[in-house]
């Protein structure tokens, strides 16, 4: 396969550590989100990293899925199940981007909303929305997804 | 001979019998699942619902290098529920 094989190797040795770190990051966020949710239930007042991680079970589920898929990808790689490994990383990154897009859309929507009901929100509040953990990690995931898809197209995939 | 629900993932099987009532029998026939047909088991939650492909052997090969003899799916993919997969009896085949 010539140079595409080298590209493949390069991809693997650079991307894999990134995958692991990103996957762990997502799992950590998930964990914090669950703790925050619990703190919210018992009315504890202060939550961890309130600017970044909401106390939302749904968010924790998505973070868990993404992190799980990324770690799974590495696991499959070492088990020599290439197809499954690539599938896992594509889906993990894809879900990460989807979650990010959703968060961006929601923040934009709330900005529009503030105009409509005439309760203007501050720049800081807006930024909080765009810089929430699921969005932040998603910004990192986006270029990774693009790169992975490009490489995939050239080496393995027919469509 | 075993129910399709127990077939090995990735294997090729031949339909040996269909043990179903008339309604299901007809629907399967319509869709091309008849006795003697060869299917590839794409995915199975074994035992459980099954995704199959109806395969065929194309005879002419185009391109530079003739590829190993492998049947390709020409009948589309079908998802068969657990109940249905239990009623289709198959045998594994080595080469179609």
């Amino acid at each position, binding site marked *: 396969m010539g140079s595409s094989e080298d590209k493949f190797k390069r991809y693997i040795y650079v991307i894999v550590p990134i995958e692991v770190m990103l996957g762990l990051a997502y799992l950590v966020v998930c964990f914090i989100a669950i703790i925050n949710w619990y703190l919210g239930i018992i009315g504890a007042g202060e939550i961890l990293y309130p600017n970044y991680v909401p106390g939302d*079970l*749904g968010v924790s*589920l*998505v973070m*868990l*899925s993404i992190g*799980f*898929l990324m770690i*799974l990808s590495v696991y499959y790689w070492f088990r020599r199940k290439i197809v*499954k490994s690539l*599938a896992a990383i*594509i*889906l993990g990154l894809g879900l990460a981007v989807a*979650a990010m897009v*959703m968060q961006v859309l929601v923040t934009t*929507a*709330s900005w*529009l*909303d503030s105009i*409509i009901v005439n309760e203007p929100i501050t720049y800081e509040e807006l930024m909080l929305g765009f810089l929430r953990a699921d969005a932040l990690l998603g910004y990192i995931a986006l270029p990774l997804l693009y790169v992975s898809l490009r490489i*995939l197209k050239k080496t*393995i*995939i*027919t*469509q | 001979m075993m129910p399709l629900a127990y077939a090995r993932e990735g294997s090729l099987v031949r339909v040996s019998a269909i043990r179903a009532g008339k309604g*299901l*029998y*007809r*629907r*399967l026939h*319509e869709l*091309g699942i*008849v*006795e*003697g*047909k060869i299917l590839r088991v*794409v*995915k199975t939650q074994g035992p*459980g*619902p099954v995704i199959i492909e109806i395969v*065929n052997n*194309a*005879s*002419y*090969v*185009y391109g530079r290098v003739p*590829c*190993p003899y492998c049947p*390709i*799916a*020409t*009948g*589309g*993919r*079908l*998802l068969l*529920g657990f*109940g*249905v997969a239990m*009623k289709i009896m198959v045998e594994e085949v080595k080469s179609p």
Partner: protein
Amino acid sequence: MTNEDKRARIALAGIPNVGKSLIFNRLTGGRAWVGNWPGVTVEKKVGTLRVNGVEVEVVDLPGIYSLTAYSVDELIARNFIVEEKPDVVVCIVSAINLERGLYLALSLLELGANVIIDLNMVDLAEKEGYRINHKKLESIIGVPVIPTIAPIGRGIDKLKEAIGKAIHEEKVQIRIVDYGRIVEEAISKIEEVVKDLAPELTEKYPARWIALKLLEGDSDIIDKVSKLPVGKEIIDKANQLREILKEKIGDPESYIVERRHERVSEIVKTVVERAAVPRVSMTDLLDSILTHKVVGIPFALSAIYLLFRFAFEVSTPLVDLVDVTINGYLHDLVLEIHSLPEWFTSLLADGIIAGIGAILVFLPVIAFFFLGFAVLEDVGYMARVAFLVDRVFHKFNLPGKAVIPLIIGFGCNVPGVMAARGIEDENERKTTALIAPLASCNARLPVYLVIGGAILGTMAGFAILSLYVLSIILALIVGLLLRRILFKGASTGFIMELPPYMMPRLDNVTIKTWERTKRFLFKAGTVIFLATVIVWLLSVTGPGGYLGPEALEDPHLIRESWVGVLGRSLSSTIFSLMGWDWKAAVALFFGFIAKEIVVSSMAILYGVGEEKLMDVIAESQTFTPLTAYAYMAFVLIYVPCLATLAMIRNELGLKYAILALIYEILLAYIVSLSIIGIGSVLGFS
């Protein structure tokens, strides 16, 4: 027939999911007239095409797999071809589903139709790693084969040309399948008898086809033949031969079907050419994870969560836009018109405008929900979800496919019930239609938010989540009970096509979204509108006469209105066990008409605008956390809204609509009382 009057007619046939609708649009330029096939609720689409100066009528036949007498769709297609005798039948075959498509094509040829084959989606076959030699196919099968790629319009011109040509040149291939010596002998014998005794029949149907169908035991043909004076003789002869065949080759019908499939396989083998290097397709890649029973589930749940997020949170500006302009600005504006009598402006503002506002306020969420769902559907992911849940659903005697109407039901029950049509097995279909109303639709959410927010405080979110989970669990349990008691019968099984993953297509997605949103808007919408006006009427009048619009803002006046009277009698009787006061009872009563009304009725009853409602309820101490939760559960379960009931009646009949009504009220009582009972025992009161 085309004489000099320059008019021709063609039909489009094909199995489901081959791109027939798109081809229809490409041929007719999207100008179509939609109606029904006579006597049935199956949609009929007709358009026109101009080719070679001739105006051609294009009839879209329903998507079918073959031409048996076992399904309404197939009979419609068959009868159309035989009676209306279209000049050409374009059989659209998908290149990636060649076997099934060709089976239909052969069936059409045997019927004596003038067929041309449109080989669509050739680009997708290329991606899967093979090509179809259409010239070879043309020479084997004897009719024109035109490759096309519908989404980009490639090949459509050639298709139009071929149609134009075929209108004048008829190519008929009745003997396309050879059934073997024994059966062919039987066929010729019956052919002779039919030609002798009933030649007028052979003007409609080819004699060979009649013979085949008689041997297959086709109920429609047997019926038609037996109605002829000479019918008995023909049928006896056919039965005689059937018996003989049974001994020699087994069931004739199965044999004939199998032989036809064999012929298809032979043809496919000759015309398909595979690429030299086998590669992995994207679909296989993604499916290796998405259909994995462990890994696929968290992904599916996440996807559904994101869908809900999209529907509820991204649509907020639109919702508030509606609220501010209609329920706020317009409403207040009308009330300021002092030149009209007070009761009239109140009717306009609090009745009519409020009614329209009530519908439109839900519209964005529902539209967004269906939009997201349609995208997931078009990509092909929903089929995988059905696969994942099938194992679980099977334990409840339901097909995995039933998960789709349930998810749609989370948006609005009305299209949810309608979506149950997609389930083939009759018993399973009826069961699914009856449990779809248990899905916690969008209209119930405001009730949860207001009551939960007011009484349950921080636990509200969790409580709401638990209600959604409860709705699924109840749907499954009730489904099982219905399957065991009422709709018994081993399921004929769950079979679903698994299309390759594709980029979602804008036209498909918009059509699907609009179809479902339309149901909400027009069916549920009219009911909601009427209900709001009725509530208004019953609030401003009472046994003592007209009370005036002040009643809408004054809790003491409201007690004297019909609404108040009704509420007090309800709460002191049937709702007394649950400890809900008369205002809650009235809201429930109106919720029967449309669950969207519950919150707005409560607002009227407490005499406040909806923004202040939460605080007022919290202060009034009419609920304890336990009774509040029980109330929310009751709203979840009790009676399908009127529009949903109408849909159930439409799909299943009056009997089952009444059944749905009764079982849901009973279930709602049982669950609410249990919640209160168990809660009290656990010390929650």
